[in-house]
């Protein structure tokens, strides 16, 4: 589920005022646990998910797991 954001503009963590970094993040759905590379705040660990990812790849994986 590796994802490069289409959003070319730079988002910052508003709380920590830091640039986001690509990092391994744990995600889970139903009985599936996996690690994916996502943008997150290196300080507070807030993970950034844009619309294309949520409605694209993430939805696809969710549906796949629901039908397993």
């Amino acid at each position: 589920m590796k994802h490069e954001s289409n959003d070319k503009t730079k988002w910052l963590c508003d709380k920590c005022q830091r640039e986001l970094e690509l990092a391994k993040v744990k995600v889970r759905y139903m009985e599936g646990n996996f690690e994916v590379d996502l943008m997150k705040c290196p300080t507070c660990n807030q993970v950034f998910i844009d619309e294309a990812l949520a409605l694209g790849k993430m939805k696809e994986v969710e549906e796949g797991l629901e039908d397993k």
Partner: protein
Amino acid sequence: MNLDKLLETGDRCIHKEPPACTAQCPVHLEIIDFLSEIEKGNFQDAYKLMEKRIPFHKIIGRICDHPCEAPCERSKAGGSIQISDLEKAVLEYGAYKPKKVWPLPKNKGRVAIVGGGLSGLTVAVDLDKKGYIVTIFEATNRLGGQLWNFVGDALTEELLQEELQAIKDKKIAIHLETFVDKNSLTELLSEYDAVYLGTSKWEEPITWNPITFQVGSSTLFVGGGLVNETDSVIFSVSSGRRAAISIERYLSKVSLTDSREREGVFETVLRFDISNKASLPAIEKSGVIYSREEAIDEAKRCVKCQCRKCIEGCAHLRKYEMSPDAYIRQINHNERIILGTHYANKMINSCTECGLCKEECFLDISMKAVIQETRESMTERGEMPVSAHDFALKDMAFSNSSRFSLVRKQPSKEESKDLFYYPLISFSDYVKGLYKGTGKTEYLFYPGCQLPAAYPDDIKSIYEYLVGHVAGDVGIYLGCCGAPADWAGRKDLINENIEAIKKVWEEMKRPTFILACSSCIRVFEKYCPEIKVESLWDIYIREGLPNKDHIKTSQTLSIHDACATRENSDLHESVRKIVSKLGYGIEELEYSKEKTKCCGYGGLVYFANREQCDAFVSERIGESENDLLVYCSMCKDLFVSGGKRTYHLLDLIYPKDNIEAATRKTPTLSERHQNRSQVKQILLKEIWREDPMEELMAEDYTLIIHEDVQKSMENRYILMEDILMVLKNAEEKNERFCNPETGDYLAKLRRENVTYWVKYSNEGEAFLIKSVYSHRMEIVEE
């Protein structure tokens, strides 16, 4: 789920059953395919089908006694298809030089054929092809037997000779002028592995097995005239072919009787309704045989008998092109998967459970019942995709929460005392009703969840009408009956919900429920038949309509009955009486009353497969030029969203001056929540004169949401409330991302099992919402 029982239901479906013509053809020519090829002008492909099924097709095709024609369904609408004449045309226009077939090595056993007539020749050719060494013994000096009697215009001597020569060319041993009697037969039986007796007469009576044509358990098999007792050529070749199958099975030492039920002529269980087909007479031949064009036209008269009644009526079965038998096999497969993808889940969640299929079926097969059981099985085993019904179930929970749910007895006489002193008010039916109050709740008005969501202003009027008109006290009960849980296969939730309803019913000393929603009626009948219910529409007819001068403009309406009321003919009549009393004309739809269709909302298809839902909507709204009249608020909302002018019965009974009811914008998902809460507030304040409940959500934020974002909210099932909670969290805790270049913020919040994201910017004091989306996957932030 009992899968064996399920498969039995599927096996009852007659969709795949052969038509009567093929069943009555002793060699089962696939006549529908045959005619379809002719219809397309593919005479050669039609010829191939004859070649495949009919022994000596060039001969039989010209002289067949065509038992296929008599049972033709077309005979009831213009005359049977002239199949026999079409075969002759196909032999003329579709024949091609056969491909050279390499003979198999002859090593499978030796078979003697007694009698070189039609059936004997069939056995000889069939067994020769399969690698048996075949020897024919014929009493006369030529092969062909009774075939020579047919020589004439249709079957020329030249053609017959040619066909017989082809047999000789196969190097089948032929002994002409060799008479076989009882004694020589005994010799043949000892000499050969099997013997076929295909003479027209025999010197002593023989008994044989009617399925295998075997005589006792011997190596003797019979066929032809001895068996058929007619001179039908098609029966003769059929018996020869079947005897050849038996001989092969016998010599291969496999069961002679397995799966032979449908050899020869049989009665098909297929039923076909030709009543809606226009009568078309048979095409006349201009010559001795049909011309190509005449043959094509004659083939076009075939109605291609196949039972598709359920499929034709249902946008779901048509979308997946599924007959119940095929559908059930898919469900069976889906249920048995342990590891792997359940491909049928989405299909199973795309049935509206409207029940039209059963209504249309000759055999009462109900896919509604099958789908309901399947969904229950899926939820019990944890195989139901959560996202399919999650929003609808949360909506149900909302309706049963304190934000909407309410139970009240009719305001007592004591509480209403002040009303009785105002002379004007005391003339109102409502106040008169209050004055007659006894304190015993005879009726409980239960408007359901979607009606208050769509008609918040009318619930109070209906309540006041009921108090003023029905005999006995009328209480009110706001909530959701549990239909979403039923559709989602959530037995646990529906049972819990029904228990809660029963508890209120008991506490109120078992009043009659007055229901306004068709789905509520269905749920009450299914899950708590002990509760007496009455439809609001029936009461309007019994007690009289509330307003006198309601009609704006007289027009003709087509009534779309709610699918949940399919079996409720009294209710259908009441609705029609109301519409007529209000001065409207009625033009019935083809699919109405017990054969009504679903709008597309049923079975929660709206949530599980929007595309399927849209297919139901667009089909239904295209069925009438008239404005539609419905009495279920979801039907109304879907049809209006589809662009069809549609009235709800309440639009006619309680007309509003300032809005065009037939095109009224449907409330959004958020507005549905707000409207329900508002109904509760209005009732509490204006009927029970209680303090309104506290606002659960302090709306400190002013939001600007443009239409495109509102549309995504609807399509993505995101409520205003979700957005507000995300903003509140972001603003209070600063948990958000910011974009210095655009000044936008992006914030998220997980609520239950969904994470909501909101992109927004500050516009002075207000928030401009730029986009909203969500996902179910959980991100572990550590």
